[in-house]
């Protein structure tokens, strides 16, 4: 019966249509729309002037103010990712290879930070680094300093907050790829004369690279797109690129400029994702996220 076959063919599309329709109307069309919007102008009266103007782009691309903040955003995201990788990889390796009875607990603890609110985890550092925070209380108590130190509201505290927020992404991704490696490969390498270090460097590390790369990508993209962490833990000079977008759209109501700025951010991050996709592929990312 041909009708059953036709129905079989239609069925997946019927099931997919609500989700696809949502993504098209709420993501793809709006994205096209900000492309259009970025060529409009904001007039002195505050109204939008429809047309094809390159002024926003000229301002966003040539003004050193935007360029500097874009570069410092990429630098902050890069340092954050590097720190997360250095701190996260050995931790994931330890959990994956440990034979303790508490392994389930260790795993649960890896997932737990995802459930603790981002804003709470960010502000928790004020309790530690603030003028009347835990660290200053200890330093004053031990007589190491006479006056409380101001350790907040600088680039280092922003990076610290970002690492704290993003570290679980890397640990979990690396962990998933580590437990997927056939343990026999490592023992084979050992029996063929590799020492433990060589076996790790020649076998385990390369095989877990996709997990590390997927975690690092997530980390980089999320760090580069944040504006909350700099607002909470940064000083007035620690604005990141997403802060400029927020200011343009919400504070100044300059939507055309905000559009151009958000497209700039999107383009830069798209290049990062495309490079990743070229060398590693999207499948790994989906695996790590679920």
């Amino acid at each position: 019966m041909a009708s059953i076959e036709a129905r079989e063919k239609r069925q997946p599309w019927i099931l997919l249509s609500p989700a696809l329709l949502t993504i098209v109307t709420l993501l793809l069309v709006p994205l096209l729309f900000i492309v259009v919007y970025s060529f409009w102008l904001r007039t002195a009266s505050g109204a939008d002037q429809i047309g094809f103007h390159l002024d926003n782009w000229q301002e966003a691309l040539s003004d050193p103010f935007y360029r500097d903040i874009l570069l410092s955003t990429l630098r902050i995201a890069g340092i954050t990712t590097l720190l997360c990788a250095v701190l996260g990889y050995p931790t994931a390796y330890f959990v994956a290879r440990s034979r303790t009875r508490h392994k389930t607990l260790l795993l649960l603890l890896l997932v737990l930070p995802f459930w603790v609110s981002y804003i709470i985890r960010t502000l928790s550092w004020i309790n530690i680094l603030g003028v009347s925070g835990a660290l200053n209380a200890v330093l004053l108590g031990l007589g190491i300093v006479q006056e409380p130190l101001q350790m907040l509201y600088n680039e280092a505290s922003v990076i610290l907050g970002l690492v704290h927020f993003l570290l679980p992404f890397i640990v979990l991704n690396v962990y998933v790829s580590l437990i997927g490696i056939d343990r026999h490969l490592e023992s084979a390498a050992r029996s063929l004369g590799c020492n433990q270090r060589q076996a790790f460097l020649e076998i385990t590390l390369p095989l877990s690279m996709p997990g590390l790369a997927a975690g690092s990508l997530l980390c980089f993209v999320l760090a580069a797109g944040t504006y909350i962490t700099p607002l909470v833990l940064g000083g007035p000079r620690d604005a990141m690129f997403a802060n400029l977008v927020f200011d343009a759209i919400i504070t100044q109501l300059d939507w055309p400029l905000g559009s151009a700025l958000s497209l700039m951010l999107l383009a830069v991050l798209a290049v990062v994702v495309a490079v990743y996709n070229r060398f590693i592929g999207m499948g790994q990312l989906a695996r790590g996220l679920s």
Partner: protein
Amino acid sequence: MSGWALLRLHAILVYLFMFLPVGIVVVLSFNASQFGSFPMTGLSLRWFEALWHNEAIMRAFRTSFLLGTLTALISTTLGVLASLAMVRYRFPGKQAISTLLIAPILVPEVVLAVALLLFLRALGLPKTFPLLILGHVIFTMPFVILVVQARLASMTSHVEEAALSLGASPVQTFFAVTLPLLGPAIFAGALFAFTISFDDITGTLFWKPGGVETVPTQIFAMLRNSISPEINALGTVMIVLTVGLPLLGMAVARRVDSGRHH
């Protein structure tokens, strides 16, 4: 020190780094002192009591619950249907569809927020609560799809085929066989969507109508002054909710699972 001992020390320090700050929030929320800081002067529940009487915070909780529930409901419905299509059927262009379905995660949330906000403004729609829901749906749905897809993939379709061959219609089969079997997957997806929505601030600050606050945006607004013991208490309540609820959910799911196997 051996390599493994070093590794263990590293892991312990990383775990401390992840949990100590959150632990300090909880400890300070019981601080009796006027200021939310060290040294602690005694234990007290006064800040939790203050929360209970703070109308703005209670309103924010109600808003967040409503938003999270509606978001979970919509994005789980859409996500489960899409996951069924992705796991159960083969069709042309599947790879591209799969990328499209997780596209909202690949776009930075700030850009997504700007795009949706400007699009609705261009249509002449003001910022409203439904806009907030739509925004939350679009970025929670990919996570629901990833979770549900992973669970579905490990489930065979033999039972459904049996029901169909015994004369049940596809709709009957869906409601009588597929849906109950999917229960844990749907529950996990919905819980995930709820917690992501409940916790969101990046998109919410763009989309929220004037005067509407969710718990995270309320906390953010309160931070403008300085950190207060009340914020720490609110943080503790949030932690209990967002950590306690999923743990409870997992326990329930495990119990249901083991009940089925016996």
